């Protein structure tokens, strides 16, 4: 099932997929190098990872047309592991990440994405953009003016070239930026930092390696926390990207298969000396924009990448870092959702808070998983708070003034239980109280105990209490609703609204 694909998935769009593959491969090279530098490993680690992940995911992924490779979100999580334990432990962590992702796929954890609200997704991409931008700052501090000039020139080429008619749409502007800046730096003999200074570049095809780490419990304890973070962030970004590609191409994808596919791709990357990766939002958008739709586009991107890297290795090392920084600034600007800033005026405050908190937590911890967790929790709290407003208690005294009937309408759960209890006037001297619950919904045990409390208090005052419709009210307390897609069943449980 993991390898199942239709002919149209592969060969429905050959020419465009191959062209898009070239464009994506050209864009992947600077990114893979830049993300390797973020993680603190040789550029070849990121390049091998990008090759392997893009190729493997073409076969096993659940979303044709999506591009996966070494990513910034993942690189940021590896920094301390690489610094404290070295590359071999990173490779081991990559393998474990793959295994965990496959398990997540079989447990269908992809379905949990429904808890991640739109504002959390926006927060995620904005935070990612900010982190990618911040990762470029070391290259821009304590340097000569040449670097600034080159970076600015690079950005100028990237953004202005596509405006040129015809040519602009045929030549990838980031590629032109890199080529031009490399030649300028070489011709003028400007002494700036180059990619070659950042570590080893690949000179051969990747070879199969088992990570050189002791296979014991201690190793597991070192890599497990990193692997868990990598698993979560990798799957989150992959699921979000899959949704974006779904929307762009107006097609559906198999999210749980994508989880398993990401796992297999990461295991492949770990065994070929690459770092863990995941789907890339920016690259996938570039792929779709360039006309890539099928599995072939991802395969082509991976193959072109490794071919270019191996044959152009000596040239790659001469690329000035300023050119890479310019490309990454473009990626960061393109990833950031600028509309979310202008939209803040129209969106409700709670939504904005969720988005901003997600961003702030990520930027503070450098871990996108924490940001998403904070965002999801906050969004849930806001939701619980909103729903708790849907509670209303009306009461009526009978003609003799001895019996009062309370009618409860709405949602009673942990957040509204206290408000529910406070609606009853316990000090009123009555013979009898009727509480009509047939239009109320008791969602949890807090609601039931709040009711118990009210009943006991009335009894202590010497008032008889009669409950009406308790069974209907507590029908919602069960964790699982057997039938939730039939209107008459929903009517039974939530009737009266």
């Amino acid at each position, binding site marked *: 099932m993991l390898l199942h694909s239709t002919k149209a998935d592969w060969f429905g769009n050959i020419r*465009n997929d191959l062209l898009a593959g070239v*464009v994506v491969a050209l864009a992947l090279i600077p990114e893979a190098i830049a993300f390797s530098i973020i993680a603190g490993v040789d550029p070849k680690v990121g390049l091998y990872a990008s090759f392997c992940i893009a190729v493997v995911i073409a076969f096993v992924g659940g979303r044709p047309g999506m591009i996966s490779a070494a990513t910034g979100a993942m690189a940021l999580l590896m920094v301390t592991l690489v610094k404290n334990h070295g590359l071999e432990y990173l490779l081991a962590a990559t393998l474990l990440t793959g295994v965990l992702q496959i398990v997540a796929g079989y447990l269908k954890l992809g379905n949990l994405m429904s808890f991640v609200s739109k504002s959390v997704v926006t927060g995620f991409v904005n935070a990612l953009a900010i982190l990618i931008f911040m990762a470029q700052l070391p290259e821009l501090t304590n340097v000569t003016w040449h670097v600034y000039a080159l970076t600015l020139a690079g950005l100028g080429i990237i953004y202005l070239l596509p405006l040129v008619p015809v040519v602009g*749409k045929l030549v990838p*502007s980031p590629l032109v930026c890199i080529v031009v800046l490399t030649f300028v730096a070489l011709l003028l003999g400007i002494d700036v930092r180059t990619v070659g200074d950042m570590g080893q570049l690949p000179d051969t095809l990747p070879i199969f390696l088992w990570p050189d780490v002791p296979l014991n419990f201690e190793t597991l304890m070192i890599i497990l926390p990193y692997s868990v973070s990598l698993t979560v962030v990798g799957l989150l970004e992959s699921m979000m990207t899959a949704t974006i590609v779904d929307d762009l*191409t107006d097609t559906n994808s198999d999210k749980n298969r994508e989880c398993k596919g990401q796992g297999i791709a990461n295991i492949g990357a770990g065994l070929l000396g690459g770092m863990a990766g995941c789907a890339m939002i920016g690259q996938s*958008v*570039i792929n779709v924009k360039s006309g890539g739709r099928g599995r072939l586009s991802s395969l082509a991107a991976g193959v072109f990448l490794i071919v270019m890297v191996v044959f152009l290795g000596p040239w790659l090392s001469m690329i000035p870092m300023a050119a890479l920084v310019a490309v990454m600034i473009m990626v960061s600007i393109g990833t950031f959702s600028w509309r979310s800033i202008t939209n803040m005026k129209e969106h409700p405050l709670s939504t904005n808070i969720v988005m901003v908190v997600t961003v702030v937590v990520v930027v503070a911890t450098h871990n996108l998983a924490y940001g998403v967790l904070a965002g999801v929790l906050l969004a849930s709290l806001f939701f619980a708070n909103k729903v708790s407003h849907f509670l209303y208690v009306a009461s009526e005294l009978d003609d003799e003034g001895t019996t009062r009937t309370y009618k409860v309408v709405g949602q009673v759960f942990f957040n509204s239980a206290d408000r529910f209890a406070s609606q009853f006037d316990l000090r009123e001297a009555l013979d009898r109280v009727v509480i009509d619950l047939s239009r109320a919904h008791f969602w949890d045990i807090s609601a039931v105990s709040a009711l118990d409390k009210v009943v006991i208090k009335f009894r202590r005052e010497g008032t008889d209490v009669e409950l009406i419709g308790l069974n209907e009210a507590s029908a919602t307390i069960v964790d699982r609703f057997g039938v939730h897609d039939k209107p008459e069943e929903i009517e039974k449980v939530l009737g009266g609204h």
Partner: protein
Amino acid sequence: MNNNRVTVLACIDGSAYAQSVVDYASWASRTVRAPLKLLHNIEHRCHAQVSDLSGNLRVDERDELLEQLASMEQKRSKILMEQGKEMLEAARSRAEADGAVEVTKVQRHGTLLESLVELEDEIRVLVLGARGEDHEEDNKGLGAQLETVIRAMHRPVLVVNRAFTDAPRRCMLAYDGSEAARKALAMVAESPLYRDMECHLVHVSRDEQSPLLDEATGLLNEAGITVVTASLHGDVEKQLADYQREHGIELIVMGAFGHSRLREVLFGSVTHRMLENAAVPLLLLR
């Protein structure tokens, strides 16, 4: 008869077979007194219409790209929907002239398979052309989606591969005693579709005649169907094809894709070869 599975569903597209699909579906509809539903499906192709190879990400590229793609496809879909409506309308008047019962039209987006799976519950028999508009030029060969659709559907599928002349009078049921064939036989015995037809029960084998056909003949006779039996020897497809020509058979009925996909990859599928070579429509019973 299950009340849900009531309609004869005919898939209409711009191909040359569309008219004969309507004719055959109308015949089925009026013979079994089942309402006819005409389906036109609008495929969302994965072909990219324009490609921008500038490879950069502008400000808010995601949103803008989405809007751009949406407005492009909007134009295309509108045209396709309009064309489909015309096709459906033409098909409807043709079907009504042919005497089909309660003709309705439906138009859906997505792959053909998705649409059919969605409608599967109400299908009694599905009528399809052997090739869609994409394969117009090839005179031989099958539509790319045909086999996938037949495999996925758990309903009888009538594959139309020539113009409709008159209601079929002689049908041939290829019978080998297998599970799939037995089920097909039972369906033939139950359905009113075959009441006015002479049913040729054909068994192709390498050994001598077995009691297989007698049993099957009995079952069909009980249902009031005229049966002619024949026991042939040799290559299955060739013998069936020869028999079809010699006896003027106008409809071939058979159980479809009885074996696992793996076995069919290794040994080839009888159903697939029959679909490719048959000169008359095939009714595949699943």
